[in-house]
């Protein structure tokens, strides 16, 4: 390979254990490439294990195989949460799993970003992609708050904004369990005080987050992720809004509970029964 970026030995070993149909060049049908995953997970591993020392709870709730959707909150601080959940699935699951996010549409138009996101499995956020990946028994990572969620300011870091309903319809249609998760600390790592929309437009992105030290360089704050037990919603995905909204609310509530439990834990309060992965 012409890529000479260093790859951590643990990452190399885990790459071989990924249950993804790579061809002899190490590229899967979606273009996911070991040559990109290696260096990218090596970097993520450093941030996951050393810089932020991310703590994850309830990873045993995540199914080892088969289609599944990880559905969580954005905790502020750009998409740090997504990156760390991807790292957690790769470094802490046995065998490792590749969580595939749905990339913002604008990213595919940005040189290099397009290449990098696609090669690492984060395809453009289209319903066709989501359905196809689930049909292929992959793991999908979804943030129903969307870009509204990444734009959260520091003071909003523990709040949940409006959830889209598409993810529940998708889960019902594709008969896929949802594993809700809560992510804590992104807002501390990259405390956004403002989002510069017009400067962002100049660079072809929706906005650029501004921190007290101007740029979105993360500080080594404590990050945590809490995985809940899977939730399954029966149906076809073409139910009326009322039905679907009720399911969405259940997932949102579950995530809110996990966030509360996490905050109590951060403050050193004793855990409650419902905090341990919780009943679906």
């Amino acid at each position: 390979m012409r890529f000479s970026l260093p790859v951590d030995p643990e990452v190399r070993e885990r790459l071989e254990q990924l249950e993804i149909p790579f061809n002899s060049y190490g590229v899967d049908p979606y273009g996911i490439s070991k040559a990109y995953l290696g260096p990218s997970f090596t970097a993520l591993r450093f941030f996951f294990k050393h810089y932020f020392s991310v703590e994850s709870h309830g990873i045993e709730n995540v199914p080892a195989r088969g289609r599944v959707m990880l559905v969580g909150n954005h905790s502020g601080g750009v998409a740090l949460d997504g990156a760390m959940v991807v790292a957690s699935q790769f470094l802490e699951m046995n065998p490792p799993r590749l969580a595939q996010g749905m990339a913002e549409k604008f990213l595919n138009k940005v040189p290099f970003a397009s290449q990098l996101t696609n090669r690492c499995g984060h395809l453009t956020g289209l319903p066709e992609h989501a359905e196809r990946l689930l049909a292929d028994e992959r793991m999908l990572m979804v943030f129903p708050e969307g870009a509204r969620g990444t734009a959260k300011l520091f003071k909003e870091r523990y709040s949940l904004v409006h959830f889209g309903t598409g993810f529940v319809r998708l889960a019902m249609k594709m008969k896929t369990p949802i594993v809700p998760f809560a992510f804590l600390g992104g807002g501390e790592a990259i405390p956004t005080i403002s989002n510069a929309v017009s400067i962002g437009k100049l660079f072809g992105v929706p906005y650029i987050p501004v921190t007290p030290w101007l740029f979105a360089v993360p500080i080594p704050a404590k990050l945590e992720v809490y995985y809940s037990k899977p939730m399954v919603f029966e149906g076809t995905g073409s139910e009326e809004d009322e039905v679907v909204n009720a399911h969405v609310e259940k997932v949102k509530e579950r995530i809110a509970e996990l966030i509360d439990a996490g905050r109590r834990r951060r403050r050193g309060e004793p855990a409650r029964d419902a905090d341990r992965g919780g009943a679906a």
Partner: protein
Amino acid sequence: MRVLVPGLSGRLGKMLAERLLELGHDVIGIDRRPFRDAPAGVEMHEVDIRKRAAEDVFRKFRPQAVIHMATVTHLVVQSEDRYRINLGGTRAVFEHSHTYGAEHVVFVGRHTYYGAAADSPLFHNEDEPPMGLASFPELADLVAADLYAGSALWRYPSFTTSVLRMVYTLGPTGHGTLATFLRGKRVPTLLGFDPLFHFMHEKDVVNALCTTLDKRPRGVFNVAGPQPVPLSMVIRETGRTNVPIPEMIFSMMLGRLGLPKLPTGALEHIKYPVTVDGSAFKKATGFVHEIDEKGAMRAYRDAFPRPTH
């Protein structure tokens, strides 16, 4: 079976003709271009498909099956001429097939029908509309020919119509858009973009056509073989050098410095992938590709080694 192939004179046509003869079919070709080194046993008629003489061939020969390959795909031919050939020719093929009692017509179309765009999904299904025309209007005649061919499904219930949307071909003949793009020593790409390219070996293309003839699937089908791979990998594995150029500079260079004069919309096709889901065709015909992506790239490299100067 009597098989008539408009557009047989290409290099792919030769491979197809040889295989059809092997399978025991009578093969007759129509093409404006002369068919040099046509395999013995092929009856060739050097006429334009839109002319009366072509109709005479249908009348005299009464083909049971017709494989329509007479579409112009490269963009160097003037657009208006292409329109006439691709649409007028396709119309003539279907009308004559109807008039002279053909049982099966195969339209050989292309997967670029779907278009390349930032927001278009990987692995298109047959029911998706063509979305690429806004950025690449020069492809309109091919898209229209494809849709027109599809309309034969209700227009002519007397015969079976198979519309095939085939991925790029790659192999020893060096035929096709992708093979031509890779011909030089250095291959220009857009800096920061590395789309998946979906292609299959020519032998598998011929296999797919013969399978279609045999199974007569009715409808519109994507035809794909092995999985797609990134363009950078195609360039590397065929022994070429990838020359990434920033998009702005690339657009300015088109038609200069040895780069072909392409419509700017063509750049979308080296920026974003066009990949198709070929499972419906496989299900309908049982088609399985023989040569994987590595084999196809290697075959091309062996036949067209990296130019030395």
